[in-house]
């Protein structure tokens, strides 16, 4: 499952990257394996997405989001 599969308001944990072809900036910003995040809001066509993690918010495009492997966290409400 990758990050772009989640809907607005859903949470997940980052597991890794699909391939090496991703901007290093994501790593430098702390998008690392083990980090928890929530999809905060999305733009039209679900692109770009904004996620919150470690007290920061980050906007990234769908293309980048598709490259990030995640594991969803089930919300308590469900």
């Amino acid at each position, binding site marked *: 499952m990758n990050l772009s599969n989640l809907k607005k308001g859903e949470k997940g944990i980052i597991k890794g990257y699909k391939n090496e072809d991703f901007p*290093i*900036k994501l790593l*430098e910003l702390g998008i690392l394996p083990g980090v928890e995040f929530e999809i905060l809001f999305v733009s039209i*066509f679900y692109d*770009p997405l904004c996620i919150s993690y*470690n007290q920061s*918010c980050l906007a990234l495009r769908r293309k*980048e989001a598709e490259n990030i492997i995640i594991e969803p966290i089930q919300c308590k409400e469900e």
Partner: protein
Amino acid sequence: MQRGIIKLAVIGNPNVGKTSLFNQLTGLNQKVGNYLGVTVDKKIGYFYYENVSYKIIDLPGTYSIYPSSEDEEVVSELLNNMDDLDHPDKIMVVADSSNLKKSLLLFRQVQDLGFPVLFILNMLDEAKKKGISINIEKLKKFLVTEIVLINARKGIGLEKVKKEIKNLDKKTKKFDFFNPGLRYFNAINDVKNSYKVTTYKAWYYLAYNGKFLKEKEDLNNIKKKHNIVSKRLQIKETLNRYEEIGKVFSETVSEFVSDKEKNYLEFSKKIDNNLIVHPFWGYFIFFLFFYFFYFSVCFFLVRNSQRIYRIFFSFIQKKLETIYPGPLNNFLLQGIFPGISTIISFIPQIFILLFFLLLMEESGYISRVIFLMDRIMRPFGLNGKSVVPLISSIACAIPAIMSARHIENPRDRLITILATPFMTCSARLPVYTLIISLIIPNDRWYFIQLRGIALMAMYLLGILSAFSVSMILHKFLKKNYQSHLIMEIPTYKFPIFRNIFITLWINLKSFILNAGKMILLINILIWVLGTFGPSENFSSKNSSILKYMQKKELSHSYLGIIGKQIEPVIHPLGYDWKIGIGLLSSLVAREVFVSTMASVYKIEEKGNFLKEKMKKEVFPITKKPIYNLATGISLLFFYAFSMQCMSTLSIIKKETKSWKWPIIQFVFMTLLAYIASFLTYQILK
């Protein structure tokens, strides 16, 4: 004096308060890289503490020493180029206390490069409010550095910063925090031997392709020999450093999110979700905002301030005319005075528009606009960040093109730079208003003013052509680079007006000194060309200069002669040689057209005198009025498309680092303007 100055650099992630600290330390004692000069790209300021002078360089925000945009390349260039005049002796790394991890990554890298570093923790009280507490003493030990706590917004802790900077030891630490590992041992040794650098620098050269190195051949050979992929090295380094940072963090920082903070975050999330970045209301608010500010408030303020300064200047001019009339007085009044008044007329526009732009940037709204617009801009080969240059160019293309530096992808950036001059900048405004008032009657349909609609249409034309051009470029430019948008969205902040005004002041100063120089120079040149003509046309050799300046003699001046020479070329567009003079002189800057026409018709800027004279103008042969609808619209189109701004061309040359693009742009826009005007005139005639 240079020797006695200690050079400091301020480094940090975006939005950590770097510039606030910089402003607090230096106040108005700063300057910015100028538009026309090529060498300086950074903000430089000075301060004095206990008999030592300090020169601080405020660097663009960055997350690591490996740059991902040209903006950030300034940082790596400065840190590596020992010959750079501003190569820092000491470095201050500024961090946001409530978001420490990312700052620690950058801090460690700078530390490993071998600089004496001071770690500055900003906004500690805000972090406390958020329930974050940091064990400073422990952190000091882990980081092997001095730490200063400040509040840059309120100006707390500045004395401490100055003191610690002074005490900061110039000798560097003994060991590297980052361990490259055995896999790269041989490659690093080879780099160390050929470049005589430390272990970490050798690693850095390998990981960043040594972009800043002049002789890269050795490095390339070493990389080939040891089969090194730079990107893998960067990934390894980042992961390793975060591992260490995680340990340091867990031992020194504890987080407890209070209810109050939770409520605040929930509230701002709600505002974002339901209004600012809402798929419908978000755009609605954005357009409303721009309509309101740019078309109502800004134009109201700009127009009124222009009216006031015009009254003021005509008053001074009247006063001066009566004192010592003569050639010198004439030179001052006709050659220099209009130049100065043109420069001053730009100040309110730049001031007001830049003010709103900075306000949006400081408050955190701009990044939300980028988020909203990214998807919409992409089909045109632009990206969300192109919104900022495109909107700024409503004021002036020069700062707008400079602001395109935030765009990481070179292709997107180039397209943005080339599309920006099509937007209706404020220099076109005086030309548009003059021509519109000549050809469009001052009628109203209920609340709608015809002239207002015409002006609005010109603005829309600007937007439309900017987008069309970027779409064409998007089709034809090679797609070498992957485009991406990765951007932190800051929390909303109340803007600090001190920061806004300092930035405004520095930009204005730089405009007056650089672009202003050009405007003044050209005004004098035009005055000379328009005043003097080949002397054989005049029988009396003793005639004073004054005689040349009489109105009837303008057709015999150099400018008049050139204007007549080009008349056959511009006649199909519906122009006469007088307009030709206007076109020529406004090659430098569009708004010069108005003042040139005023001097062609020798009119003091008073009331609607110029308009009336222009309205009465007729073609000598056909006796038809020159300023009819066809000529007027043809002129409007010419000014909408033509590249008549030398400063913009020079900034494009500077930003694209080549002559190719400014030349292509100039030729393309001039041709486009000619064709568009030709067609409109021939159809409407």
